């Protein structure tokens, strides 16, 4: 389902690089001549808090998304994917990391962690299409853990959900990322696109 007018909600954990991915996605859209506005809330991003951002394609003016407004949810961490599910329009698409980054309350053993199967189940009930990718492992395989974020963008661009292709993404990575990280991000993006071809969850 190709949609030139789409609202995307992105969520992750401070320090993960989800804002870099947000900015890359926005630049990629602008390079392709698509109207874009993007927003981010990151007052204490470096302190391990939740980092939420948005990319709105096709002529919106508000950079914010409210519950039920997002066509697509990109979760760079599965607990945050679960937390952000109310933003997703029922029947929307979800692209999520499958590896947890436990919050401090969990690491100290004070709260029970949700399982990935619980996340998959909740996502399955809210979304019509969902993909889970091991971003950190993909990043590590590409030689740079943070490049795993590009795998999620690679999957998004290969899914046909947006008028953006894996080739467009590769061009944007070359154009907008620092030269030292281009190779790893290209590899991770390609791996994300490849895993997507394997089918939805």
């Amino acid at each position, binding site marked *: 389902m190709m949609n030139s007018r789409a609202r995307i909600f992105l969520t992750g954990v401070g320090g993960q690089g989800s804002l870099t991915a947000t*900015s890359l996605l926005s630049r990629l859209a602008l390079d392709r001549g698509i109207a874009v506005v993007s927003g981010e809330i990151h007052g204490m991003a470096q302190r*391990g808090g939740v980092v939420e951002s948005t990319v709105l394609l096709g002529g*919106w003016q508000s950079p914010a998304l409210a519950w039920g407004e997002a066509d697509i949810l990109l979760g760079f961490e599965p607990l*945050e994917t679960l937390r952000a*599910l109310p933003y997703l329009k029922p029947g929307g698409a979800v692209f999520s990391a499958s590896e947890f980054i436990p919050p401090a309350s969990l690491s100290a053993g004070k709260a029970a962690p949700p399982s990935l199967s619980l996340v998959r189940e909740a996502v399955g009930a809210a979304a019509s299409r969902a993909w889970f990718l091991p971003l950190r492992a993909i990043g590590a395989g590409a030689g740079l853990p943070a490049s795993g974020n590009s795998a999620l963008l690679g999957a998004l661009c290969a899914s046909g959900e947006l008028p953006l292709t894996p080739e467009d993404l590769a061009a944007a990575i070359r154009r907008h990322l620092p030269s030292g990280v281009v190779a790893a991000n290209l590899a991770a993006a390609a791996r994300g696109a490849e895993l997507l071809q394997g089918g939805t969850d």
Partner: protein
Amino acid sequence: MNHPLLDPPGSRHLLLANEGIVRGALEAGVNVVTCYPGTPSSEVPDAFARLAGCGLFRFEYSVNEKVALEVAAGASLAGALCLVTMKHVGVNVAADPLLTMTTTGLPGGLVLLSADDPGCHSSQNEQDNRMYARFAHLPCFEPASAQEAKDMARAALLLARETQQPVLLRTTTRVSHLRGPVEFGPLPGPAPLVAYRRDPGRFVPVPAVARARHKALAANMEAVARKVEESPFNRVEASSQTPPLGVIASGISRAYLHDALEAGNWRDAVRVFHFGLTWPLPVRLLEDFLRPLSRVLILEEGEPLLETAVRALAQERGIPAGVSGKGGVLTRFGEYSTPLVGEALASFLDRESAPLPFSRARPDLPQRPPNLCAGCSHRSAFYAVRAVYGDSAVYSSDIGCYTLGLLPPLDAADFLFCMGSSLSAGSGFAAVSDRPVVAFIGDSTFFHSGLTGLANAVFNRHNLLAVILDNGTTAMTGHQPNPGMDQKILGPGRVHLDIEAAVRGCGVSLVRKARALNQKAVQALVREMKEERGVRVLILEEPCVLFARRSLARARRRTVRVAIQDESARACFDSFACPAFRLSDGRMDVDPELCTGCMVCPQISPSFTVRAEGA
């Protein structure tokens, strides 16, 4: 110098609105930029700092907002076109000079950027600084897109130069932190300085001068109002019909309105007044807009300022339109959104609107609150002070990362008002209470407004232990320079000030200093100082761990593991609560990825030891 913000006219870039402001200021030919950093304004001065080498303007991180505004106002008296940036609460600090400089006017021109934070994403209140436009008499621009942030920054500076009236450029977090395409205009180079002419009858506001200037201010604002009537930033959206219903929208509400009208397919149902230059009121423009309407809806986040003004105007001019504003979903609290504006519109237009369906939020999920980083020296400082005082002391906190000390188990914050309040509010509390007071303040905050509280505490024989958490940078807002920073990092353009010398200069005789990560030394000093009375200052030094890694390129030498699973390790887990601690299958460990090798936990419990290579 090569930087995208200096690209030629006609270039198009995806910019943060805060970066758009920087480009707009350069297009106006800004000569001097001063600031105190604060979310959500900080990207503006940080971009100027990166561009400072281009030689087009003079830039400084001032020690606080009042100083920043005064430095810029002085430069403007000397003829420079000036921009001063801060977050909304910073304007409170700067309010004293602000309310006088708007009466004298400033020949070179001055724009004050106030970045407000409705919703309190990273602030202690959600005050609406459009109030200052009315209170201090500042023309007020409110951008709603990155392009407008650029265009309005330029227009605000040019208006300030032309009218000599200081101007407010007011953003909110949503605006400051949105990204959108921005098309660049010409970069004409620095504005010419306006020649200084001595005029104490205008610039020295003794009472006789001040009375005359109050009238001059009123006249000048009337002249500005005539320009506001003509401004391209205030426009009525052409509509095929002229329906008897209208909407007046300002700030980011304009974006929500645009999207909500499209979503409801209601674009022809209302006339829209896009209000971008919102003060002083363009009375004629508003009257022309309101006159044919039967009803009007006012969309503004925060306080009902436009609403009150429109109601007053309607009453004064006998305009029959019914005015709707705050009430129902349009609250004074937090932020508006597209669905919220859609709901208000539906009700205003008497149309159907179904709330958007969405899946239920899960309140049971483990929270992920911001936390002091693994290896943060503040955690060590709080632990050591608690080890001595426990719950017996009252902890007076201040603004910075260390405010996060309020979280359990550190519990190192009992109250807080604003920048610098730890020392003075702590003094007052101790004057009445029989409990000891420990005040925590960071290095940048100490120079911002801790010095005066400290001088007062000494002068009035107050009784408190002040702990200065000196991490060598302004960590909370992104590691901006402050006077306490190391001279090597500051470089030749800035001079390091010694905190200990400043403290002693304020008359404090009991001053001690230690490395914040040295538990034994810090606890011994706290124990010693607890026995004394009067003003005591403990300076705890250790670079911010993020700053040390990024700017000082300090590598991690070793990490820690839990060697023995015992009560001592468990107690350290529970009381120190480092984010690198991991509990899996009942076994305690330290995440080697997150551990910074600060070596505090082995000092607390012998069950923690250095991790061997590869272990």
